[in-house]
């Protein structure tokens, strides 16, 4: 009886320890799926665009102008689009396409400006809490640059976006565009 009890106990312990070691061997589970991380942006927003006039030229002259943004989910939110109209003269603005990769838990953000109407290479990243950083490669005036987007979720009716370029592979960054968004509709 005692022997049987001991072997049962040993079995339970071994089972438990194998469970533990199995858990340790598995890759760390991501904190959250991430596919709902842009839900906060669905709706309509007014934004003050604050844009550096000359990039990577040690300039500190900025343009400020209003804009309007409309964001919609696609297929339940794993992708979304927005369109922004800059209210600074002749028609300008752009559209964004965002796509969530469920394997890598990363968002890819594609921008289409009204100057070229082409889909540019994406910036890629994810949210940690209310803040997200996205990185990509681009060219500016013929020179290769690293691009960084930052999204800060803020609250239900406010959020913040900014863009920075780096010409030294990401060591130093120059922020060249920021927008403060205020919700006008859900």
């Amino acid at each position: 009886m005692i022997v049987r009890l001991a072997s049962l106990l040993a079995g339970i312990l071994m089972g438990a320890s194998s469970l533990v070691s199995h858990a340790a061997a598995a890759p760390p589970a991501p904190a959250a799926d991430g596919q709902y991380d842009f839900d906060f942006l669905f709706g309509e927003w007014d934004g003050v665009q604050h844009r550096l006039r000359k990039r990577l030229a040690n300039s500190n002259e900025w343009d400020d102008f209003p804009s309007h943004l409309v964001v919609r989910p696609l297929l339940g939110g794993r992708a979304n689009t927005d369109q922004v109209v800059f209210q600074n003269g002749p028609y300008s603005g752009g559209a964004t396409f965002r796509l969530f990769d469920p394997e890598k838990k990363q968002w890819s953000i594609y921008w289409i400006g009204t100057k070229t109407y082409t889909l540019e290479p994406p910036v890629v990243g994810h949210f940690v809490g209310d803040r997200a950083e996205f990185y990509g490669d681009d060219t500016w005036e013929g020179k290769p640059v690293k691009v960084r987007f930052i999204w800060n979720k803020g609250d239900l009716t406010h959020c913040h976006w900014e863009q920075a370029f780096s010409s030294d592979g990401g060591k130093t960054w120059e922020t060249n565009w920021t927008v403060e968004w205020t919700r006008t509709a859900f």
Partner: protein
Amino acid sequence: MMMLIRNVVVLIALTFSLTARAAVRDGSHDFDFWFGQWTSTHHKLKHRLAGSNEWEDFTGTAIARPLLGGRANTDENIFHSGVAGAGGIAFRTYDPNKDLWSIYWIGTTSYTIDPPMVGRFVDGVGTFYGDDVWEGRPVRARFIWSKIDLTHAHWEQAYSIDGGKTWETNWVMDFTRTAF
């Protein structure tokens, strides 16, 4: 006489510049027909590039919306194919300098964005080409949009493994409008 020659030269130059300008047409409204809501019937080849003639038929829905006044647009497709969550998103942008549409497809099997299909409409028929890979083999892909009226549209996809000499149509969709 000199005057006459000069006038002829000006006339010829003017003719050429007008022709050049007309060469890049404005196709930015060529997908306007698509905005709205649709039901679809799908006729899809079961095995591609395998000499097969077995097809499956199912229904679906699509919702298409303009972006930036129509120069870009998106649609959401749901396929009632028996596979949960089957469907995808199309994202289209128009390059006014080249009169070319680029069509990006994101399927719900991979959620990745692939290189686009590129092309334009001529006389009501849109033809778009791109490079793709099918079961490890490089293929040329072709979309055709045709038979378009206010409440109907027809789409089909074909693959070529000989660089576009011969094509095998592997997917046909017929759309009927349910809402604007």
